[in-house]
């Protein structure tokens, strides 16, 4: 038996992404490098043979997925697994969490300008976000972060796959960092919400904000 056959068998039998490390557990003689090499081999083979499926890189792992051209045929069947699409508010909330995790509810609501408790509950129920810690300060509010399921849902390999702020077409030429500006002077007579928002951001634990210019905090 070839290494690539073993790897193929493991990928075939799994219905969730598997990391190279996990695949290597199939046999004592396997290591990650061999697995990755085998995957490259298989990919080339599938492409040559014009197979209807590919090995996709998702959520820091590998998964066999059909090519998107076959969607119209597969969609006719009720029993093919199909994730349901997220609502606008859910996507908006996820976007904020993805870029700013760990982040608390108050801060999310300040960015969105609307209450978000219901959306957060839904996202948590769908395991797209999870509680990753608690902030210091009053009531020690919970902080949210994205999950593995989040990457799977959007087909991302890692958080690095998220669009980088600088590639966005929005008028952000004069770089407004997504991360809250720490030294920002609080508004002279701020409304309750403004103060609450600032409080939350100040209370947030010091995350790796070194790369603040990118507004990005990959949790690799």
């Amino acid at each position, binding site marked *: 038996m070839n290494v690539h056959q073993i790897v193929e068998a493991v990928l075939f039998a799994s*219905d969730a992404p598997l990391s190279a490390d996990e695949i290597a557990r199939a046999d004592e003689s396997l290591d990650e490098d061999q697995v990755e090499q085998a995957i490259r081999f298989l990919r080339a083979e599938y492409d040559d043979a014009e197979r209807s499926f590919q090995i996709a890189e998702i959520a820091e792992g590998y998964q066999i997925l059909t090519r998107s051209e076959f969607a119209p045929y597969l969609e006719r069947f009720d029993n093919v697994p199909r994730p349901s699409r997220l609502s606008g508010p859910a996507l908006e909330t996820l976007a904020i969490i993805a870029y700013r995790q760990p982040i608390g509810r108050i801060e999310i609501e300040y960015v969105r300008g609307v209450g978000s408790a219901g959306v957060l509950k839904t996202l948590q129920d769908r395991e797209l976000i999870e509680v990753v810690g608690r902030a210091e300060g009053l009531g020690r509010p919970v902080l949210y972060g994205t999950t593995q399921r989040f990457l799977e849902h959007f087909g991302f390999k890692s958080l690095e796959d*998220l669009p980088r702020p600088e590639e966005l077409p929005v008028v952000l030429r004069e770089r407004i960092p997504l991360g809250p500006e720490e030294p920002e002077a609080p508004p002279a007579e701020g409304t309750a919400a403004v103060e609450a928002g600032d409080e939350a951001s100040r209370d947030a634990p010091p995350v790796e904000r070194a790369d603040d210019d990118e507004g990005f905090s990959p949790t690799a």
Partner: protein
Amino acid sequence: MDLTVSEGTVPREGFLLVEIEKFQGPLDLLLHLIRRQDIDIFDIPISRITDQFLQAIRRIQAHDLDSAGEFLEMAATLVRIKAQMLLPRTAEDEEEDPRGELVRRLLEYEQIREISRRLSAAEADRARRFPKGFNPPRPRRPVAETPLQAAWDEVFEAALRVEMPLPRERQHRVSPRSVSMEDKIVLILDSLRETTRVEFSSLLRGFREKMHGVMTFLAGLELTRRRLLFLRQTAPFAELWIYRREDSGEDDAGTEADVEEQPVNRPDEGAAEA
């Protein structure tokens, strides 16, 4: 996103008509007002925008208090900034533009919105690629296996108690309806020839089968539909009266809906009896 510039209905310049329900929140609305009018976001004419914002949220339904509160909060912020802009700024305090924080929030929100659009595209893309597998049928609750604790004779006795279902003799005979609605229509119309009203029960006298009642009632409804009469009942299960309709166009009350609840004395009833 329907935004139409009203034409001459409102004298104020730059007034915009906005459908508030289509916005996800105050930031969304504000951003829309700004972008729609090609306003430089770094130099927002705060007075104009505040007026437009207040105009737009005037129509928020009072029952939607949660979102109304969110919009009102933004309105308060705008008014505060407007006031701050009016105050003469002393040169010494190097305070930032009162609009600074708002601009930062708007840009941030705009960016978040763009990112969520990208996420949506990625989601759609991923949804077109299928993993192996299938949706398992809904799991059924397993029947708890209970040990059989019965002696043979008990089982035997229980078996004897079970009555075998007798093969039911069923005769499906299709028989013509013995009572026709047409007959009942004639009966009702006949009995109303002399008088203006008749008791429903009096029409059933002499007929024993239930079907007669059913058909008489249906005939009554049918005639009501044809606006030849109306039905009246003072209370549920009280006597049902059938009234001849004098003038078919005059009174709309004589529809089926009136069968159940009707005030006892109506002016035209007195007139009919007089």
